[in-house]
């Protein structure tokens, strides 16, 4: 179906459904309940982040997952995409179409240049070259390029901006031919309330398209070439293949994905700053992919979602909420637990994040997807041993 084999097609359908019904799925608890207040994730601002960072991670995975080249400056393309989009808002109009197109194109152009130079080296040298380019972009955005980036204030749309395509009745927020991004429909069912936001759905459609394209790339001759490069570059050249253009293609595609993510971020909120390009942001992209499972199709999306979810939940929890949870305990125990957990919540999110990185790399080097597979294997092996003395089935 759709040029996918049956397994990929199933995966694709699952992603489609998840993306489309996320506003319902992610609100499992009644809105006003304590659990709902803490754990519901089905509100637009957060869901947007899931899908946009999902797109970013999918793109990063095309580079790192397939070729093994670790870019430590990928956030630069995200930032560049955002700047390009906001400039389109400033110059043309709030319509997101030209903004998103330009963000992809501009990020792609930068990726051609940065990739061409960085790919002349491999290993850690490649990582440092990409890091150097990203840091340069970041520093310049804060200094000489302030006319383009508006420095520390951040780039945004002002009343005096040309917006030459803007006509009288147009919305004054980002919109898709009149459908505003922040427009939403609310559905109240009993204690639950679900919000369906236009902006989220635009981003979700892009996620679905991005995911589809990434499956096709993984299964295409190009995907095969890239995996071969990761496996053995020497053999590639002695087979008669020029690895450079393949690598560059992967780099540019992945840069364009990041540009798209940047454009979408701007479409959701037409304001952007250089911190989006800082190297910790690049580090976060790497972690998302690793957490989910590098080189797997669905892993990076899961990783991006999980990190953004935890970030949101953990930084929202405070001592009051904890006391509520532990109310059933004797007071001393309640206090003890709250004191113990306190450093990891609220402002302590980064501590939790750091520990999470370490835990994943130490205990789950293959990421969540591999972890899940291991658990599945454990169950199916138990069944097998019952059935027929654990005859080994060949790995597919």
């Amino acid at each position, binding site marked *: 179906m759709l040029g996918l084999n049956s397994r990929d097609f199933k995966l694709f359908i699952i992603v489609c459904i998840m993306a489309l019904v996320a506003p319902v799925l992610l609100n499992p608890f009644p809105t006003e309940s304590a659990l709902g207040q803490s754990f519901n994730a089905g509100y637009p601002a957060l869901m947007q982040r899931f899908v946009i960072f999902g797109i970013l991670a999918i793109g990063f995975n095309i580079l790192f997952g397939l070729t093994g080249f*670790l870019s430590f400056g990928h956030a630069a393309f995200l930032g560049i995409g955002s700047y390009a989009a906001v400039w389109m808002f400033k110059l043309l109009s709030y319509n997101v179409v030209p903004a998103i197109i330009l963000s992809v194109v501009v990020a792609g152009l930068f990726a051609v240049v940065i990739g061409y*130079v960085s790919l*002349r*080296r*491999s*290993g*850690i*040298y490649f*990582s*440092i*070259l990409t*890091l*150097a*380019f990203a*840091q*340069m972009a970041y*520093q*310049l955005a*804060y*200094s*000489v*390029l302030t006319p383009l980036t508006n420095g520390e204030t951040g780039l945004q749309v002002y009343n005096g901006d040309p917006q030459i395509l803007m006509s009288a009745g147009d919305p004054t927020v980002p919109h898709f031919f009149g459908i505003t991004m922040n427009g939403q429909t609310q559905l109240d069912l009993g204690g639950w309330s679900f919000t369906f936001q236009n902006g989220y759905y635009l981003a979700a459609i892009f996620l679905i398209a991005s995911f589809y394209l990434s499956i096709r790339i993984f299964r295409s001759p190009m995907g095969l070439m890239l995996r071969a490069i990761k496996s053995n*570059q020497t053999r590639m050249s002695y087979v008669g293949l020029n690895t450079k253009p393949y690598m560059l293609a992967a780099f540019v595609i992945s840069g364009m994905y990041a540009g798209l993510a940047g454009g979408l971020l701007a479409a959701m909120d037409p304001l952007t700053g250089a911190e989006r390009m800082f*190297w*910790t942001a690049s*580090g976060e992209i*790497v*972690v998302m992919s*690793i957490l989910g499972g590098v080189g797997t199709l669905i892993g990076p999306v899961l990783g991006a979602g999980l990190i953004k979810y935890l970030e949101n939940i953990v930084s929202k929890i405070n001592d009051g909420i904890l006391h509520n949870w532990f109310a059933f305990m004797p007071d001393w125990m309640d206090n003890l637990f709250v004191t113990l957990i306190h*450093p990891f919540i609220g402002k*302590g999110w*980064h*501590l939790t*994040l*750091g*520990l*999470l*990185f*370490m835990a994943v*790399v*130490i205990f789950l*080097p293959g990421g969540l997807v591999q972890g899940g597979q291991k658990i599945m294997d454990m169950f199916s092996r138990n069944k097998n041993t019952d059935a027929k003395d654990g005859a080994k089935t060949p790995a597919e």
Partner: protein
Amino acid sequence: MDAFILQILNGLDKGSAYALIALGLTLIFGTLGVVNFAHGALFMIGAFVAVTMQKIFNLSFLTVDETQKDFLGNPLKVETPYVEAWFGDAMGNWLQDWSVPLSILVVIPVMFFLGFVMERGLIKHFYKRPHADQILVTFGLAIVIGEIIKAFYGANPIQTPPPTAFLGTIDVGSWLGFAENTIAYPTWRIVYFGFSAVIIAAVFAFLQFTTFGMVVRAGMADRETVGLLGIDIDRRFTFMFGLAAAVAGMAGVMYAPILSPHYNIGMDFLVLSFVVVVVGGMGSLPGAVLAGFMLGILQSFASMNEVKALIPGIDQIIIYLVAIIILLTRPRGLMGRKGVMEE
């Protein structure tokens, strides 16, 4: 000419810090084959050892002095630092004044211990893992260390002055035969440079002239062969990790008066030091030192107003720009060996 020399001097202290951190990174990479993204955190811990010592020496207890009254007419509460009470006023004051240099004595055992724990507890499990995993786990560790420091010391920079004897500037210009006060240079920075030079020399001498150092150097060149000789290289490498941590820690202690420590300085220095290591050539100790000083000095030249007027923004990006140029023209950095870190 004097402006020129001033810029070189200005670059020296930053260059020294880069060189010391890069030296440790290279030792760890060369001996253990591990890319340690937590090395900047070790530098930061050093700086906070200085902060802590200063705090300890200033710990005070309150006494009520009935003979004096404050402006409300109540008996005056006087703070007396414990050190003054225990060792007498003069000694107490001296300890407070000299808390930064004295921290060196504390930081060496502390960092050796931390290095030992880090290597045995975490890093050793990552020798055979891909570099990406090493980067990530140490990156995570760096965040954790930074956050712990933040929890204890807050997010704001903490001023940590040098001993009063080293406050102020030295008129380097008049030494060199220029007019008076043309090149005035903060005394502590000169101390920092001298200190770094001594440490660097000591590390090189240690590697060059002791049997231990020889084995380690041989191990850096070819780990397997040395292993085959039946030499227990692992124990020595653990020690090297401690040594690298101690070097970073000392660099941090002495830098505290130059840049008030805060929980993020580790990361700030780490990224630059990594660029330094790569420019010097992964695994080359002289390369790391050379590149550290070179980039420090280039950075200070790029910060001159004349240069900035010519190429706006150059001061922000010079290090990265040089790194790009060097990596493209000299694939293995200034002094890198073949085959290191290429796959």
